[in-house]
């Protein structure tokens, strides 16, 4: 009869450690399979890379630049508002030849010039960061949604494998005037992107598209605004010698205010979904 071979304590300890390692490895493998087979993992694969770190940083940077511009302009615009009220209360409309009114108009013109100068100084930074964000997103959208996906896979990404689920799932920000501060909007974008890991690809695709189109529009607006500032500055410098408040001045200030600080009344109301039906568990074998 053969006896079991005896081993030294070191060998036994090594084997026990190896066995423990093997168990741990198998457990890890099983866990891996379980995770891979779980519905959550299925819903999230394949992950689309639409927000690299650079985009997140660019968004943060754009938000900071926008905040700086707002802070700089807030005081000037406040002053401009007060001066306009004073001008109206002094019944200067139609009394442009009055010396006092002319002085007031010149003061308003000077403040307006100050506003244009601040914008002129801050806009290049803004343009730079907005363009960076736009270009990074453009690359991601082209590659991930444009070249790697067919229309069907794009649709499946958007629906996120939850076609039969209630439509109350997280709806990303929709495009359009949000009625909020510019910096606040970028801050919100940044937060949405920075915390997007927990969301599905469907939200990311819509979010990336939304931000990209917004950046495209913003970039174009900044370009046009910069061109206009040069022209408006020249016009105002000429007007300074006559002490005139042009309707254009009032319009520009109004426009800047609504872009930078938002317009609370313009918040769009979104219609709610129609009342839900409960019985819809049926799945056809023909369903795709």
């Amino acid at each position: 009869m053969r006896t079991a071979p005896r081993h030294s304590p070191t060998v036994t300890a090594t084997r026990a450690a190896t066995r423990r390692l093997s168990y741990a490895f198998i457990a890890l493998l099983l866990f891996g399979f379980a995770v891979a087979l779980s519905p959550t993992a299925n819903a999230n694969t394949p992950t689309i890379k639409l927000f690299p770190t650079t985009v997140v940083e660019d968004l943060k940077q754009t938000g900071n630049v926008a905040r700086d511009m707002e802070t700089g302009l807030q005081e000037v615009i406040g002053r401009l508002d007060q001066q306009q009220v004073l001008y109206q209360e002094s019944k200067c409309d139609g009394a442009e030849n009055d010396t006092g009114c002319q002085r007031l108009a010149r003061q308003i013109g000077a403040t307006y010039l100050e506003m244009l100068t601040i914008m002129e100084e801050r806009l290049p930074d803004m343009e730079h960061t907005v363009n960076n964000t736009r270009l990074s997103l453009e690359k991601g959208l082209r590659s991930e949604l444009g070249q790697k996906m067919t229309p069907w896979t794009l649709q499946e990404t958007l629906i996120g494998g939850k076609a039969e689920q209630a439509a109350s799932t997280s709806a990303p920000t929709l495009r359009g005037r949000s009625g909020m501060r510019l910096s606040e909007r970028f801050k919100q974008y940044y937060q949405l992107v920075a915390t997007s890991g927990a969301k599905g690809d469907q939200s990311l695709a819509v979010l990336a598209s939304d931000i990209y189109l917004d950046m495209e529009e913003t970039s174009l607006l900044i370009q046009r605004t910069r061109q206009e500032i040069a022209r408006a500055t020249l016009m105002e410098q000429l007007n300074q010698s006559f002490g005139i408040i042009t309707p254009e001045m009032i319009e520009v200030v109004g426009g800047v205010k609504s872009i930078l600080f938002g317009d609370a009344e313009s918040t769009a109301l979104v219609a709610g979904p129609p009342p839900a039906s409960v019985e819809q568990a049926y799945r056809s074998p023909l369903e795709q």
Partner: protein
Amino acid sequence: MPIKYLLPVAALFLASCASNTPSCVGPQSKNLSQAIDTAQSSLMNGCHAHFDRYYDDLLTIAEGDPKPENKRAFSEFLVWSSDKGLLSNRQAQNYYNRYFNVKFMSMKGDYNNCSHTCPNKQKVLFNMERELSDKERGLLRVSLDNDGYYRADQLFQEVELVLEATCSACAAGR
């Protein structure tokens, strides 16, 4: 055979054909399951060329008594049509999904979006819009699946937005 005998024989043959032509009238019952039975019997008796019209008639009848179970009735009718060889499997899927699924059959394609969808973006969106109205009929008016229809509508809006951005990015890369 002399020609004087051939002519009456041919006339008789043609007359017999004419008398066997099915009338292919639509189902008259307002009850969906009875209407499906009638449609099935007509389709099997030579009216298969009128499949589209029968399907439309059945949808109209179902609209008169909308309920979630109607989805199953239509699915079973289409599976039967496919089994009997009246429709290919792909056609059956198209008929079902166009009306009763959230996903859009107009968004099918084997090529990437930059090369295939973007050059035809307007056409794709137009077809999706038409499909959405069929989904309104199938999901909302036939099966009372409000959530499903709302999701399809939302999906349409998302596709519109995502395609606008993606196609703009594709164009910028050229």
